[in-house]
């Protein structure tokens, strides 16, 4: 191999990698836009939507309850250690309420649903890809995006905010359990403290605390990310059953990173728009 060819090899590698990245980004957003369009145009697959809402929403309630409960309890427990030193345990409710509703509720719910439903979407659609079921749909003049992706996309967008509300409520209850049992606070004092922290940032639409509103708005985006990423990796699956496992793993890792990154940028935007 000549010197110029040796130098060209890494360049070609970088070139291929960049082209691959650009292609995947383009395809990812194309799938997102097709899903958004499919959500508001015929044909609608109502039965598939109900099945997906059951799988994503109802099926995730168990893990969401456990996540919320233990997160709220551990938040109260950890903060109590520090706050006791200053005699500020009455503010436990503020800390738990703010952390759970603003950040931990939406993000932890999304991460839990990613692990459960996002990987499932990638594996299910990936298995359909490698067993030619998606080709079968296409040959029968059925658009796989409308049939498979759109119901999951809509179901995730609808279910994530509801699951987040469940997580928030259970986390606050978990914190209350510790506050009452371990710190001897009254329920009234704790709940008043939670309310005050949520009311601090103001209200939107007159009655909805901004924290609650942003905590419910974020999961809409997270739901879209979970569904599109899971389905994208599923549709791109190749390499038989091994490929299905790979697709599920990639979907979970990529979705988790996207959720954490999107959470940061969304928080910036929401603070700028709603609070400042």
């Amino acid at each position, binding site marked *: 191999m000549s010197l110029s060819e040796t130098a060209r090899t890494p360049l070609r590698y970088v070139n291929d990698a960049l082209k691959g990245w650009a292609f995947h980004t383009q395809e990812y957003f194309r799938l997102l836009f097709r899903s958004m369009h499919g959500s508001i145009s015929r044909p609608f697959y109502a039965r598939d939507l109900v099945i997906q809402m059951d799988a994503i929403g109802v099926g995730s309630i168990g893990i969401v309850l456990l996540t919320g409960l233990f997160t709220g309890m551990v938040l109260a427990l950890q903060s109590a250690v520090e706050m006791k030193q200053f005699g500020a345990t009455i503010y436990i409710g503020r800390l738990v309420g703010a952390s759970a509703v603003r950040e931990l509720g939406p993000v932890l719910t999304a991460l839990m649903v990613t692990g459960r439903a996002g990987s499932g979407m990638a594996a299910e659609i990936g298995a359909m890809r490698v067993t*030619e079921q998606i*080709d079968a749909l296409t*040959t029968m003049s059925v658009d796989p995006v409308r049939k498979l992706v759109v119901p999951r996309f809509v179901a995730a967008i609808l279910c994530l905010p509801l699951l987040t509300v469940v997580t928030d409520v259970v986390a606050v209850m978990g914190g209350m359990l510790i506050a009452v049992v371990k710190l001897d606070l009254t329920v009234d004092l704790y709940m008043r403290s939670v309310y005050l922290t949520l009311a601090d940032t103001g209200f939107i639409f007159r009655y909805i605390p901004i924290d609650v509103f942003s905590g419910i708005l974020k999961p809409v985006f997270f739901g879209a990310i979970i569904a599109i990423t899971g389905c994208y990796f599923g549709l791109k699956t190749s390499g038989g059953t091994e490929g299905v496992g790979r697709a599920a793993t990639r979907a979970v890792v990529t979705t988790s990173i996207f959720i954490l990154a999107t959470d940061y940028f969304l928080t910036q935007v929401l603070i700028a728009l709603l609070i400042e």
Partner: protein
Amino acid sequence: MTPDSLDLWDSQMRREIRAEVRKALANLGQEAAPPEGEGPVVELEDVCLSYGEHTVLDGVSLALQRGETLSVLGGSGAGKSTILRLILGLSLPDSGEVRVEGKDISHVPLTQVLALRRNMGMVFQEAALFDSLTVYDNVGFYLHEHTHLSEGEIEFRVRESLGLVDLEPEQVMGLLPAELSGGMKKRVGIARAVVHRPRLLLYDEPTSGLDPITTRTINDLILKLQGEIEVSSIVVTHDIRSAFRTSNRVALLFEGSLVFVGSPEEMVATEDEYVREFLR
């Protein structure tokens, strides 16, 4: 009602449903698919296709006449299944034309591709049945998606298609694909492909992985369908015996190029070295 009158009512109802289904499918055919024309059903003209530096098809020209069954033979990776993907419009050629019912499928709008596909049925290598649906839902899938037939009419049609592939509807309709044997899956796959009475049937390795008896059953089915629903078929296979049994003509692919097209008898008589090697 006495059992006799029930039978009478049943047969009368079946006759009525049959008439309704025929009418609805005839209407569907007129709306959705182009009318049956003259000339070959499928025509490939100097088709070339490569994936990167790997040439899959190199100047392939082939025609399928109406009512004919053509088998495409060749070793693994010869490009056989790619021909089916091109006909379905799932892949596009780098150069050349793929005409279905006289229309170049790679240069027509998507709506026309969809309309052309409605005249085709595809039998996949591993049947490609939808895992989460029962046999009834799998076979009736096309009718549920693309027609406004009532559930009763769809059930009638599904039963008829399952009967066509020698399956007992009562026994299999409620089963999931995972509960079927390999041969049964293939037969359900064929029933699904013919439920809308296509004019073109494409088979991708219909007998691969089957024992000799089931292979013979599937071959008999292909022959039976030719007679009963008057369909033109392309069978992609590497099974020479099946190809000879079911086909009017055979084509042999080698490294992306056609090395032989002719009747089974002509293939046996040819002096071409590769063909003789393949037959051996």
